[in-house]
């Protein structure tokens, strides 16, 4: 019973993935090119940046990068919280 359920789930997910692959557009022909052209032109013209990827990362999509940095900050906070030592146990921070 469990095996049959797993098999059914596998085939359903696999068929969905296969459908996605079949319907995929050919490489290098995106549906909408307006934003791509805007990024490629504007990043050099207005921002004077050669690396368009960095321009997108830190300027056009800057809020995403801010969220990424915040996630890292939260991760460090979590690690420090879980792995801390309590004061009465430690003798001399080592």
């Amino acid at each position, binding site marked *: 019973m469990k095996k049959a359920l797993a098999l059914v789930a596998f085939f359903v997910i696999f068929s969905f993935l296969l459908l996605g692959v079949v319907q995929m557009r050919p490489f290098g022909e995106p549906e909408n090119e307006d934003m791509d052209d805007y990024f490629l032109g504007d990043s050099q013209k207005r921002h004077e940046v050669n690396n368009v990827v960095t321009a997108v990362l830190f300027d056009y999509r800057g809020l995403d990068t801010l969220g990424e940095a915040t996630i890292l*900050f939260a991760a*460090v906070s979590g690690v420090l919280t879980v792995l801390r030592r309590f004061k009465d146990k430690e003798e001399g921070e080592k």
Partner: protein
Amino acid sequence: MKWEMSRVVKTVTDILVAPIIIFGIYLILHGHLTPGGGFQGGAVIASSTALLIIAYGTLGKHKKDLSSIEAVGLTLFILIAFLGIGSTVFYNYITGTGFPFGGSLPYHGPNPGYINTGGTITFMNLMVGIEVAAALSLILWMMSKRGGVMEPKGSSSKKAEGKD
């Protein structure tokens, strides 16, 4: 707890740490010119920390320093972003002015590789690099300190804590 590798490892670490850190700084500072950037350069700098931890077993008493550096990096990133609030947040207000990294490209086309460009993007790369380097170093150090990797053989963690 005290944990040191052999003299060979320590010597190689002494030789390699400085080039690794310099390469990380290079990646961060050239983030607006070449592949790479703040996250990648910070990770490279943190790898040098991993090398130091493996070879010497300790970083000294720098946990609070690393924590503050990380917080300062993130705060300055947000500050630089919000300084452009006259137009929008994350507006590139430095480019085109005479400020450092505010130079302009003479032509548009292939990458001439001028480091004096980018405006706020370069500064944000710097801040993210500082933050990521400090954060990953802190994570590595805390995990190496508490985990069993660095424990000497034949002694439980309780004993090792008591010995310190």
